[in-house]
């Protein structure tokens, strides 16, 4: 390790001298080497500093970059929150599409039950199957909107028929033409309703 150093230091010295010298001049060698290393280290630090000073961006640019970084960080944080929320919603309402497609089947159950004679074997059978299916759907978060006689609420009702009916307060749902459904607390389908008008004004 010392040899190459010496060689470098002494320039044109011949190989024989170097080879001879390896054995006995350790202290001198090490001292010299330390000096050189120290010098080299100092040099390289200085160069690095100079280089860094040259490359370092203007303070303004620095601030701009930091600003942009902070904004990106904030954007990402918002994105993460939204992704979390969307994921939670996705799990909760994953069935929405399937259930929505199933609603016409429920409607047909309702219709067939309406038309069959109550107490009839056919009626009983359909009712049992309907109940079984309904239990499953209910367990998965489906809730019906099927109450008539309530004030019309456009959040859950869709008015399709309007009838003059002075016997009930104005804007009362007089009939449910097609049931509406909730999945958990999201409206899956509004109920199609008949609304009375021409009666006394609603209270409240």
């Amino acid at each position, binding site marked *: 390790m010392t040899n190459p150093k010496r060689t470098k230091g002494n320039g044109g010295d011949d190989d024989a001298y170097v080879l001879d010298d390896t054995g006995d001049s350790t202290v001198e060698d090490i001292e010299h080497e330390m000096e050189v290393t120290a010098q080299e280290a100092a040099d390289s630090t200085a160069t690095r500093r100079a280089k860094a000073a040259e490359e370092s961006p203007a303070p303004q640019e620095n601030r701009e970059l930091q600003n942009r970084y902070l904004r990106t960080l904030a954007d990402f944080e918002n994105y993460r929150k939204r992704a979390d929320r969307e994921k939670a919603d996705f799990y909760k309402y994953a069935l929405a599409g399937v259930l929505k497609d199933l609603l016409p089947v429920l409607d047909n159950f309702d219709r067939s039950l309406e038309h069959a004679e109550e107490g009839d074997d056919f009626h009983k059978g359909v009712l049992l199957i309907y109940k079984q299916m309904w239990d499953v759907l209910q367990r998965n978060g489906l809730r019906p909107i099927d109450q008539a006689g309530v004030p019309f609420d*456009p959040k859950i009702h869709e008015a399709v028929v309007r009838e003059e009916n002075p016997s009930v307060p104005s*804007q009362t749902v007089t009939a449910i033409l097609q049931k509406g459904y909730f999945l958990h607390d999201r409206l899956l389908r509004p109920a199609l309703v008949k609304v009375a008008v021409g009666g006394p004004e609603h209270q409240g």
Partner: protein
Amino acid sequence: MPKILGIDLGTTNSCVAVVDVTTPQVIPNREGSRTTPSVVGFTEDSDRLVGQIAKRQAITNPFNTVFAIKRLIGRKYESDEVSRAKQVLPYQIVSASNGDLKTKIRDREYSPEEISAFVLMEIKEFAEEFLGETVTEAIITVPAYFNDSQRQATRDAGKIAGLDVLRIINEPTAAALAS
């Protein structure tokens, strides 16, 4: 960075999107639907309903439910389009002092700009809810055939809704940019 909404303020339905990092993304409304009916309803209890909800009660409240206001925005009361519209629209249309038109709902008059602003406000609200931050800037599209007055009225509607309308761009241009 503050988000800028891109709004398609349509005759029947409106839609809003935002550039999410790199790609535009449509913002669903509170009911999870990607479009919102451009309908404004005024109830007996002077509540204002916007969107799907307003559409659902339209049949029980036809004189106080405003739709298709885009056909009237920025037009003069005396124009042919307005006289034609007056014959088919259930809500009342009256003349304003400057020759423009207004809709008259339950003894109050609303300009088409205000009605459009109600739709924009609703859009702004659910978009803010979705994004989790306030939004103050938007770009609104209009049909290519809209004249200066109709464009200005659309811009004013944005202003009433609390949106700084950075650009009004033509619908076909927007469609081309998106593809």
